[in-house]
């Protein structure tokens, strides 16, 4: 559980980091909080020859919460977000942080690292997809582009990011006062067996639309249009509507069978967690 040799580089600015990774190619990896990469290196499952430490790029560490938008710098820790005042529109982002690992992990792990790692149950991926966030990336030669989160995650630990691109911030452009994320794992802090997120369009006790996203049911976090159609059709915010939505979500996915849980059990978790998430979202 010791990593193979690598060359350590410390980035002075975003541009230098992106340019250096372009120069070094696929054997180089950015090091942010190191909460996924370092364990993988210790198990020798990841063997980058170069590590580019972006930990000192303070300009990437910020939380900018406004009434109608939320910008989070990629080097912000989960803990920094968990302890920030994000206002009613983005309280769901803050409240979701408690599902991420344990406190020491949240104190070091970063938003950008989590998005770039793209675990199939990552809370940041789930939030970004649910809330239609934009992911801003910097590339070599001064390139910048914005990626819609819904198009960012391709599969197991795979994103649309180019090799020379570094996430600089994630932008949530739509307040979500009636959103909630919930999970189930055998132990607190574990990767979720299933995670469910909903964002309801709610007014006067009536749902007129909404978004549903799931983690742990496939190679990447995913939105569930079939469940969203139920919310789109609308109705009174209550058990009946939520159950219909949850059943649609469960019917739409075919989660993997593994040592931890079978497909049917995971589908049942989807059903129950979506109902919980809806109820929490309404109560918010």
């Amino acid at each position, binding site marked *: *559980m*010791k*990593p*193979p*040799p690598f060359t350590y580089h410390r980035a002075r600015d975003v541009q230098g980091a992106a340019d250096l990774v372009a120069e070094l190619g696929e054997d180089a990896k950015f090091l942010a909080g190191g909460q996924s990469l370092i*364990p993988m290196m210790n*198990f*020798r499952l990841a063997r980058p020859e170069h590590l580019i430490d972006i930990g000192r790029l303070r300009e990437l560490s910020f939380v900018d919460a406004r009434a109608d938008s939320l910008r989070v710098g990629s080097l912000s820790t989960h803990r920094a977000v968990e302890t920030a005042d994000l206002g009613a529109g983005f309280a769901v982002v803050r409240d979701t942080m408690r599902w991420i690992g*344990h406190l020491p992990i949240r104190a070091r792990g970063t938003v950008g690292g989590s998005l770039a790692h793209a675990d199939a149950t990552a809370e940041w991926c789930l939030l970004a997809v649910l809330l239609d966030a934009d992911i801003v990336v910097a590339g070599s030669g001064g390139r910048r582009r914005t990626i819609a989160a819904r198009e960012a995650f391709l599969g197991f630990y795979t994103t649309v990011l180019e090799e020379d691109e570094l996430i600089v911030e994630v932008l949530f452009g739509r307040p979500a006062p009636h959103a909630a994320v919930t999970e*189930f794992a*055998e*132990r*607190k*802090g*574990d*990767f979720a067996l299933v995670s469910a997120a909903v964002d309801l369009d709610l007014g006067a006790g009536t749902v007129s639309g909404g978004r549903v996203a799931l983690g742990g049911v496939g190679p990447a976090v995913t939105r569930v249009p079939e469940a969203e159609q139920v919310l789109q059709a609308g109705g009174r915010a209550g058990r009946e509507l939520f159950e219909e939505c949850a059943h649609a979500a469960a019917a739409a996915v075919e989660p993997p069978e593994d*040592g931890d*849980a*079978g497909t049917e*059990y995971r589908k*049942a*978790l989807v059903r*129950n*967690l979506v109902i*919980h998430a809806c109820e929490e979202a309404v109560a918010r």
Partner: protein
Amino acid sequence: MTFGAATEGGEREPDLRVDGSWVGAPVTRKEDPRLLTGGAQFVDDIHLPRMLHAAFVRSTVASGRITSVDLSRVLEVPGVVAAFTAEDLHLGDITPRLDRPAEEHTETSMPILARERVRFVGEPVAVVLADDPYAAEDGIEAAEVTYDVTPPVLSEVQALAAGANAVHDEAPGNVLLDVSMFATDGIDDVFAEAPCVVHVRASTGRQNALPLETRGVVAGWDPRAQQLLVQTCTQVPHQVRTALAGSLGMAESAVRVLVPDMGGGFGIKCVVGREEIAVAAAATRVRRPVKWIEDRKDSLSASFLAREQRYDARAAFDETGRILGLDVDVLCDMGAYSCYPFTVGIEPLMASSEMPGVYRVPAYRVRGRAIATNKAPTAPYRGVSRPQHVMVMERLVERAARELGLDPLEVRRRNLITVFPYTGVNNVTYDPGSYLESLNLCERVITDEGWYETKRTAAEQGRFLGIGYACFNERTGYGSDAFAKRKMQAVPGFDISEIRMDTAGSVVVTTGTMSHGQSHETTMAQIVADKLGLPLDKVRIQQGDTDRVTYGWGSFASRSITIGGTAVALAAGNLGGKLVELGAHLLETQRDNVELADEGVRQRDDPSRALSYQDIADVAYLKSHLLPKDTEPGLQASASFDGVGDGTFSNASHGVVVELHRDTGRVEILRYVCVEDCGVAINPQVVDGQARGGIAQGIAGALFEKVTYDDNGEPSAASFLDYKVPTACEIPDVSMHHLETPCLFTDNGAKGAGEGGTIGAPAAVLNAVNDALRPTGVELNDTPITPQQVFDALTGALEVAP
């Protein structure tokens, strides 16, 4: 029990009991300041000049012949200094022995490094030494080992199948031990005629004892002492020395084993590890100190495991719920090798002898087998088989209560042993305990807290609450007679203690036991302090040094306080006798006219005439010409103690309240009550800690932890991602209650307290889960119980509900 208040002004000194004794007081642990302020020294804190770091090339296949080992590329890796195979080191095998006939036991050997054959993934094949641990790991990656792979044997079913590959050629059927220790005449008739026969088939998951500190060793040649100095974290320093000397072909006197602070052991460190020996041998070859620190991956996959058993058990009852007979077949999957010194018999022999537990069982038949498989070997793990067989016994009682329509607690009460001493059908004599009293108190606590009411209300709301109990005893303080019944060739039991008072009137006391977290430095000091009327800070405990401590048996089987604690008490008493004698001589009075008091000796008929220990030590060391003619100078004494009869039985009852979450299948523990009786608690705070930690490990076995393998025998739970050790979030606070039935043969009435928590928890949790599942008709007997199993059971219930 009342305790003296802490003195003002931040003085830690006396948390003495009001009656003035140290024994029984919740004294703050002497170890804690250094442990809590970074002052402790663990193996990994040892840094020696020129020290190298070792890593092991380990087998990547579960079963096969080694066709080639090529280490030439290893030596080219930057930082690598040396690499050795079995052929290079010529080490003797470890062969644990049982004095049992060939039809019962097949002796097998464990090589230090694998030769010719490998028997599990992770088995050490070669050792690489490098300037740092990183280079050592780079080195092991460069090793080229080829295997002729054979199909692995990965379960007891595979092991026992006709034509199965033999893990050891000596044991073609893979049965290393097959004992039928008890078979009451006419037991088949008892079952045939019994009005109620219940059956429980159960299997329990393979577990890792999981000390926070993994195994580790620093070994090097000491040219001044002309000794191999081995600093290792072990529960059994002398047994490590014996095995090391034997394997290396050295005299035991040429090896010194020294144990630093330890971060837990739980049994995994009470057997001799092959890595310890390989590292010591490699260090002698390169004439440099070598450190090996086991990483968590190796600890989880390639150290010693435990607890994987399968039971086929029947019990016969009369209509009133009285046990008529017990018939048990237990298979223990011991993995690839037998451990030293405990052997492969550790689990099946414990199950065979202890299964009847706290109950009166008139007829008993048992067959216990140890099966070899291509998985990491096993060692004793806290509780040793009792967490499993108590669980099965308690399930049998619960099943009978259901069949007979009786209250399960009433069925227990009708069968609990209440008259002591009691000699059971298993030929074990139980000393007095509080079996019934502890159950009654446990039930009362649960009742008074309103949990039965809560359960009823919850049921009305469609929630699933359950309440479960477990009653058990734990044999502690095994003496050599009791251990001899196991027929191990090396028979543990006694302990020897030596005590020395210095010129300042302070004492140093040796113990052959070895604290790996139990705080012997505090509890043993309490015992000695009482004997000599000393403050705690004038008593220093010495342990874990084979040069300074006479051959001892270390710490396991909850023996430290019972055996070791009595030995130190007797040694202190002997020193006290010597002080009395010298004091009387110096005060010029009769021996029976003086007594120990106020750190000195005083005259009974004239307390103004007194000598301090310092005064007496002054004569004993600096003015020895004043001693009586036939008296040797100095102030030292020694004593030994051996357990009596069948040992002494601690006991406890656990009560658990769980809620099953029907949305997820999660088992939530709402309340945990433990009523324990370990006789006189030397330090109640330490006893509480032992019970709490044990209960956490028991809950881990019931609900979380399982070592798993894929079809090739590759460990699939080699990190904490997959090996689900519960955290503080999953473990409830435990409500602790104490009863005190003193042991009749230990010096101060103490019984062992090391393992009880672990023993009761799986049974109590499982019974609570099954109580909650009652409306579904489902009963779960295999552990760990998974959320999916609970969910499936509950979903069935929801479907059949009207």
